[in-house]
């Protein structure tokens, strides 16, 4: 063999070795795919929770976003090879996913942060992630501060509070509001008296200008003056207030709702996903969330960390003072047969 061919062989060997080493590098880094609902909410999560969690654990968090994850969760798990690991969805979806075998059962011995949270905030398949509220929002141009609507009975009172109204084109939280307007106490709502709720909704139906379908639409309706009163999510209304719009809202008789984290069945990176989930509900990470968006941390210990100032806490849906004025949504009822029947009845109600 000549000297040249020896050198060439060695060069080939070295470069092959480097190539193999490079190939194996990405495979050794842990990663997960996390899915939430996008927009300002996901940006806030990235700064407050996702980036700190990724650097603490030394993993890569790939993000995805979608407004309604349920159909995709179904099709991914049905395919047998889901690409998503952890999803942040309305708690009802996690419960329904658990019933249908689409979501992994959680081992709380590996989730100390989750195990330390109140019973009502977790289930066998999910851990609550953040709280938001459906509240009564109104135009301050139409209603002066002293004469502002303050309860669902006011929303239903078209004589004392004339004006155009909007409600969400969905029974969740809307049925609760109707029952509260009819006089049912906050803590006596469940199980919902569906007939009574629909009867009350029939009363207000002629005065509903729009039945909104997206959060952005609800905010836009109020901002543009299309409607004077609306049941909307507090984060959207606060965003309007921060922009200087003349709108206001009240936590009184609001419906406290949550989104939860759950892991898809057969998730590609299960052990890493479990570690991530624990980190995402860590009190310190959770306490950072309200610094960037008006949603409340699910972990009550977040309020003890000292990160959230009292004035800020007063604005958050899950702060003890505000939570006390609201009705806590029962996702267990909504995923029960009665809840599903109520959802099916909604379309018929809308069409009449």
């Amino acid at each position, binding site marked *: 063999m000549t000297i040249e061919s020896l050198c060439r062989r060695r060069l080939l060997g070295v470069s092959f070795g480097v190539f193999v080493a490079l190939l194996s590098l990405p495979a050794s880094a842990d990663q997960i795919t996390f899915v939430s609902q996008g927009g300002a909410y996901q940006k806030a999560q990235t700064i407050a929770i996702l980036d700190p969690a990724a650097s603490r654990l030394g993993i890569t968090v790939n993000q995805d976003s979608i407004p309604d994850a349920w159909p995709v969760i179904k099709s991914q798990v049905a395919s047998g090879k889901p690409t998503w690991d952890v999803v942040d969805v309305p708690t009802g979806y996690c419960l329904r996913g658990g019933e249908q075998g689409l979501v992994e059962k959680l081992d709380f011995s590996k989730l100390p942060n989750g195990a330390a949270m109140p019973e009502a905030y977790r289930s066998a398949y999910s851990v609550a992630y953040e709280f938001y509220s459906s509240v009564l929002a109104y135009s301050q141009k139409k209603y002066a501060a002293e004469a502002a609507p303050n309860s669902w009975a006011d929303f239903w009172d078209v004589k004392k509070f004339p004006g155009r109204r909007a409600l969400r084109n969905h029974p969740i939280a809307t049925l609760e509001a109707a029952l509260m307007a009819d006089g049912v106490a906050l803590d006596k709502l469940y199980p919902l008296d569906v007939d009574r709720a629909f009867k009350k909704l029939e009363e207000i139906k002629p005065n509903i200008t729009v039945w909104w379908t997206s959060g952005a639409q609800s905010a836009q309706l109020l901002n543009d003056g299309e409607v004077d009163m609306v049941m909307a999510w507090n984060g959207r209304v606060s965003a309007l207030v921060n922009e200087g719009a003349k709108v206001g809202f009240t936590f009184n008789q609001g419906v406290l709702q949550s989104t939860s984290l759950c892991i898809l069945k057969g998730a590609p990176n299960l052990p890493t996903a479990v570690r991530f989930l624990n980190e995402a509900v860590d009190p310190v990470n959770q306490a950072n969330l309200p610094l960037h968006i008006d949603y409340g941390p699910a972990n009550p210990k977040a309020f003890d960390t000292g990160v959230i100032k009292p004035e800020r806490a007063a604005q958050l849906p899950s702060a003890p003072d505000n939570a006390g004025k609201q009705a806590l949504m029962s996702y267990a009822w909504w995923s029960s047969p009665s809840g599903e029947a109520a959802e099916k009845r909604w*379309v018929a109600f809308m069409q009449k």
Partner: protein
Amino acid sequence: MKDTVRDISLQHQRRENGLMLALASPALLVILLLVVLPVGWLAWQSIYHDGFTLENYRRIFSEDIYWRSFALTFEISLLVTLLALLLGYPLAYAASVASKGWSIVILALVVLPFWTSVLVRAYAWLALLQRTGVVNQFLRQVGAIDEPLALVHNTFGTVVATLHILLPFMVLPLYATMQKIPRDLLQAGASLGAGPVHAFWRIFLPLSLPGVLAGGTLVFVLSLGFYITPELLGGGRTIMVSMLVSRNVELYDQWGAASAVGVVLLIAVAAIFVAVSRFVPLDRVLGQK
């Protein structure tokens, strides 16, 4: 001698058919894989879920909301088709008789909306038609009205926006057909004593019917499946069939419930076309032998 000539021409015919099939097969394969198979799979799901079941169809035919929604969808689609014809025919006619430069301008204006997404166009209509929108503000300024009109969040807004989005689908096939009508025929009619209206009615209009049918079919079928526009501009009360499909995806834990609605819609449309073809001699209108 005659037999061999016939055989040769048959051979050529068969070769040509084979060639046509070969050329078309990539496209046919794409359609088979991406359209026929998935739609077939979804349709299969509507009758088979842990065993054969007609539950999805029983629900559709017994519950009131489905009937109403189908009726509303067909009503709106028919309305949009007729309006598109009324608006589109003069447009296409103008484009076909105008000078080269002007016809390009007209067609460009008709096609321009294609460059923006449907979502953007729907929101644009919202900005135009809402209570504090451009139209209402203008009408109030000129004093035509005192209180803003409810132009959107109802069927009116849905129809307007759908019409706007589907108008090109009416104009372009009409234009294509009108282009091919020889002008000499109209001149010949005039030389035989027909006035302009008479000539249009007896000569031009019948010859443009293939375009009317093509454009009308496109607009009708497309508007049956419209989802984003009625969702955004209908105010929640304009419940078209597409919204029922999306509801069923949320409410039921198998695809069958939603795909059953789609299958029913497909069969209904096919039935309509079969019925129409009985009354309208389609092959003659479409110019086949």
